[in-house]
């Protein structure tokens, strides 16, 4: 099936609203992107440190088990029983030598192979499975797993590039930056947003909104678009990163730039300033970095709060944002406390992130009734997509759509990449 998308422009500066609402598009995304040649983020290696540890996760809307076998090798396979399709593992996590489906107790190894089933030979010669039944042939579908410095990715496709090629120089560098030392998981948060998953993907590539929608950034001087920073992408423009350097602008720069907005510049003061305290812990000096990987992942650093987020599509009209925060294994108690205090900035209740959920939901609500309408994506320019040394841009959104269109097989004639 090839959906008929009437792209108005070949540089993706117009994107039809209906792509966020259509069941057919959603089904095709699951097939061609999430079960296609993209690498999806699964979880962190530190979440399954021991032999026989497992965790459940999602790749698109496919339930997946990530597990570590006795020999230490990490496997990922679909969490769906080979027999009649029940979810094999219902817990979030655990440790077990074999995984057993609740329904008729079919048994799986940590590598995802069907290894046994009750009454296979029947009882007293009666019943049972046919002689020629081949357990291997019906084992759950496996994903290819890549462990890049402790960040686990999976793909269903044999055609996928190597993980290094997929992430590119910029992506691999960023994973190594965040995971350069052993980590300690601090915990999870979840948020269900009533909007299409691509609206979240766009939000992550829209540096234009950051200091406008999240007024907290500017009001309390955490981050202003006048700070040194910019957007970086991989060569294919599918991944991106918004970044900024702490204290790299002046109040005068900021006042001039925000003169025509309603933003209050440092007019408010926090009574307790420890919320914004930043202890530099990276050689590059960045205090804000959000490398985002197509299709479902990002690493996030806001001051000393560090973690990953995974986008879990839940039908065309909803997605879950699953956030995992971590610190480093050598953090002392004070540092852990500091990271948790600055966690007030991020997540479902974050001072600089709560607005995203609302912005996405009001787009979903208002665009449903406009199948012919389009998003206008021109901030930062039209035409070619490239890195920028400023953040007054939403250009990476066009990069996202160009790769989306490529995987979906729906590029316009002369579509840019």
């Amino acid at each position, binding site marked *: 099936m090839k959906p008929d998308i009437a792209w108005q422009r070949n540089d993706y500066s117009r994107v039809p609203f209906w792509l966020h609402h259509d069941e057919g598009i959603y089904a095709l995304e699951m097939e061609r992107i999430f079960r296609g040649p993209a690498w999806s983020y699964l979880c962190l290696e530190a979440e399954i440190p021991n032999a026989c540890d497992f965790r459940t996760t999602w790749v698109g809307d496919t339930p997946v088990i990530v597990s570590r076998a006795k020999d230490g090798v990490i496997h990922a396979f679909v969490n769906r029983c080979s027999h009649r399709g029940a979810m094999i593992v219902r817990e979030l996590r655990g440790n077990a030598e074999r995984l057993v489906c609740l329904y008729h107790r079919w048994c799986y190894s940590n590598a995802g192979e069907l290894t046994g089933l009750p009454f296979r030979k029947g009882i007293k010669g009666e019943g049972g499975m046919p002689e020629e039944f081949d357990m291997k042939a019906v084992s759950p579908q496996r994903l290819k797993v890549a462990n890049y410095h402790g960040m686990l990715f999976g793909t269903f496709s044999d055609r996928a590039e190597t993980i290094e090629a997929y992430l590119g120089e910029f992506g691999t560098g960023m994973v190594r930056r965040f995971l350069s030392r052993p980590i300690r998981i*601090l915990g*999870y*948060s*979840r948020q269900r947003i009533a909007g299409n998953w691509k609206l979240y993907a766009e939000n992550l590539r829209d540096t234009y909104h950051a200091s406008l929608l999240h007024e907290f950034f500017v009001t309390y001087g955490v981050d202003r678009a006048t700070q040194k920073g910019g957007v970086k992408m991989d060569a294919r423009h599918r991944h991106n990163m918004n970044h900024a350097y702490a204290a790299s602008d002046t109040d005068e720069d900021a006042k001039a730039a925000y003169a025509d907005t309603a933003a209050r510049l440092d007019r408010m003061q926090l*009574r*307790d300033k420890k919320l914004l305290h930043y202890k530099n812990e990276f050689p590059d000096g960045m205090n804000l970095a959000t490398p985002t990987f197509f299709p479902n992942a990002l690493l996030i650093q806001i001051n000393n709060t560090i973690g990953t987020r995974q986008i879990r599509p839940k039908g065309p009209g909803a997605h879950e944002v699953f956030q995992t925060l971590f610190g480093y294994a050598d953090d002392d108690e004070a540092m852990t406390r500091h990271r948790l205090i600055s966690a*007030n900035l991020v997540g*479902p209740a974050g001072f600089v992130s*709560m607005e995203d959920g609302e912005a996405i*939901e009001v787009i979903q609500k208002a665009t449903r009734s406009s199948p012919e309408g389009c998003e206008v994506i021109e901030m930062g320019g039209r035409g070619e997509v490239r890195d920028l040394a400023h953040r007054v841009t939403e250009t990476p959104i066009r990069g996202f759509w160009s790769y989306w269109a490529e995987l979906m097989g729906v590029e316009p004639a002369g579509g840019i990449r």
Partner: protein
Amino acid sequence: MNVSLETRELLTALMAEYAMAIDEDRLEDWVELFAEDCDYRVVTRENVEQGLPNVLMWCDNKDMLRDRVDSYRNVNEYNLHYDRHILGPLRFISEKDGAWTFDVSYSLFQTTLEGESRLFSVGRYRIEARLEGSAARLKTVAVIADTGLVPSLLATPI
């Protein structure tokens, strides 16, 4: 445990005001129910059961609570809604030097400006409150939300 009727009434009234202050959008009054050295945090049952310290919100003194409220009033954008808390009875756990520890179950509904209601969060408070004469103040409020999957976003406090 043995709790005098007077104490029971005082702490029940404290919790009723806690809920109503939020529901009536009197967040400044809500803050005033806390002691200066208070601790307010929202955690999820998922994290607690895994022994993980992550917080959705954490104010470890009253100034941080005031900062939260200031930010809601002046800076943050969030879903426009009404809150409605329904509280269960207090279950007393212990008392030490006039500080009472108790649990209260809650459910919190949100209603849009167009009148559509939904269950927003359900869970339990672990409260530590101090009695000073005939006044009661909140020392610790830990919101342990069963609802780990936050619908939309979490702005106004639970």
